[in-house]
């Protein structure tokens, strides 16, 4: 068993970054995720593993530092919260175009604009539909516990390097700030410069004499080549959809209704299920772990089993619900419930919504 600690979600993410053998973290403070860089600075990871931690002048600069270090084959991370993640979208689009691996976290707060510092899940569209300009996707992991804040750093880097893609850990103010027991994985080694140069020929590490130079770019003025590059990206995303869907089914075996939720909403929904079943309502929970890729096939299979209704629960005005509707595709009733602007819904409110919007009508 690994080392057990009581930690905040943000701290667990930071500790996991050190233990995952991350080479560099570039960040900028913003509530409610500032503990990530604070923890890293306090831990002196340059002494523990040689990891670089730098507070950038902006989220823009931070993501572009990530772009540079990732382009040079290093394991590199950043994190922020909603307004800051909006600023990072330019860099993320370049990272997608240039196919660079990286992991970043968004500890989501309520918006729009400066919004609030309280938790929210209103960045779903930005996270799963691209976010920046151009046709691209990123893998989105949604932790529902402090444990997953740590574990998804490791998983995130595995996926990021396997597919040369940005992996977003889409957290929220609840998961980032809450304290829970976490079992930390063992320290992993960092790769040497020589290992990187050998293992990642796409990375810019210096051109060997007589060898072809390596170029990291998202630009091609030849539109035919750019279309081919886009085809290549879409094939990669299709492979990810095929292979990397992750989810959890809770009490769905006998369910007539299913709540779909992720992150802190999924925690709340578990209590709703308990309350509902006490009233004789057979409801289960589909807890999304990956938001992209989305479990379309799995939802369609559940539809075939005769699920009567779906309630998408999210702290937003209704974003994920659109993907649930697309997956259900008319084979069942779909509704949304969620508080937003920084308000966290209660299990009772979710149950009431289930009864009124799905069962009642």
């Amino acid at each position, binding site marked *: 068993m690994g080392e057990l600690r009581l930690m905040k979600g943000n701290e667990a993410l930071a500790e996991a970054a050190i233990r995952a053998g991350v080479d560099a973290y570039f960040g900028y403070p913003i509530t409610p995720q500032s503990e990530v860089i604070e923890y890293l600075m306090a831990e002196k990871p340059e002494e523990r593993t040689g990891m*670089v931690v730098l507070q*950038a002048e*902006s989220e823009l600069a931070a993501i572009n530092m990530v772009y*540079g270090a990732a382009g*040079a084959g290093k394991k590199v991370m950043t994190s922020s919260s909603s307004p800051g993640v909006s600023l990072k979208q330019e860099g993320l689009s370049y990272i997608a175009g240039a196919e660079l691996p990286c992991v970043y976290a968004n500890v989501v707060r309520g918006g729009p604009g400066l919004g609030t510092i309280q938790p929210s899940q209103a960045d779903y569209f930005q996270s799963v539909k691209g976010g920046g300009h151009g046709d691209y996707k990123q893998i989105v992991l949604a932790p529902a516990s402090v444990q997953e804040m740590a574990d998804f750093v490791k998983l995130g880097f595995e996926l990021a390097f396997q597919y040369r893609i940005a992996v977003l850990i889409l957290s929220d103010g609840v998961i980032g700030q809450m304290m829970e027991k976490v079992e930390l994985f063992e320290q992993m080694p960092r790769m040497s410069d020589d290992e990187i140069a050998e293992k990642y020929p796409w990375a*810019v590490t210096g051109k060997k004499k007589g060898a072809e130079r390596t170029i990291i*770019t998202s630009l091609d003025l030849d539109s035919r080549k750019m279309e081919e590059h886009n085809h290549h990206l879409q094939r990669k995303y299709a492979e990810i959809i095929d292979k990397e869907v992750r989810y959890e089914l809770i009490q769905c075996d006998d369910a007539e209704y299913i709540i779909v939720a992720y992150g802190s909403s999924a925690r709340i929904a578990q209590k709703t299920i308990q309350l509902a079943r006490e009233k004789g309502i057979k409801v289960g929970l589909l807890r999304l772990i990956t938001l992209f890729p989305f479990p379309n096939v799995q939802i369609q299979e559940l539809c075939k089993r005769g699920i009567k209704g779906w309630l998408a629960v999210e702290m937003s005005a209704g974003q994920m619900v659109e993907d649930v509707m697309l997956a259900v595709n008319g084979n069942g009733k779909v509704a949304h419930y969620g508080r937003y602007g920084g308000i966290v819904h209660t299990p009772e409110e979710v149950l009431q919504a289930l009864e009124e919007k799905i069962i009642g009508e």
Partner: protein
Amino acid sequence: MSTITLEDIIKPENLVYKKTELLTDNVMSYCPGCGHGTAHRITMEVIEEFDLEEKTIGIAPVGCSVLAYEFMNIDMIQAAHGRAPAVATGIKRVYPNKIVFSYQGDGDLAAIGTAETIHACNRGERIVIIFINNGIYGMTGGQMAPTTLPGMISSTSPYGRVVESMGNPLKITELVAQLPGTYFVTRQAVHTPAAVRRTKRAIKKAFENQLTNKPGLSFVEIVSNCNSGWKMTPVDSNIWMEENMFPYYPLGDIKVDGELVKQK
């Protein structure tokens, strides 16, 4: 005296100058007479002379030199507009033993990338920035730049730059020289053989500073022409540059070995 023919002179053993192998054979996409090509070439010559090819990573900007990686025959990353100093920081911090430089124009470095420029300088990142200042946005068709001179015509200042409403030309090189993080700051040109020789020495010093891990950033501005944007012949644009750009952007070292050069 015996007559000597061209065939007698043009022999491999008499070769004294040819384009460095660290420039590719791709035809440069710059307009005829544009100083970018010269700046590329002398930068690559310095990397070749220091034998840094295997450990150098260059950052191309957005602007006319966005395709610098097509011409510079070394490992290169193309950065988002203005973000090259941040990209360079990211690389240098994880590879302190590699040589990292960004190559940027005035719009990239002194407008959209002002924050990245100033903070990379202020942190004293041990990188080289080569800054081409031609007072205009060349790539997008000759719009006003942060460095466009007062009264200067561009496609977005068609009646000349009015400083009262459009602001003043930004002397960002003097500005970064004030920051303790810069170690070497100079302003040069590449329009005459003598200017090219001086600029190459400056670039050499900049890379040498990084190579010997001097504490701070080396910043080389090259005031250059944009004959297409200025709507002149290449030769005329260089004369116009001497008469108009140099008085506002005087050439010479501004900071050497971490010390501001006393103004005469």
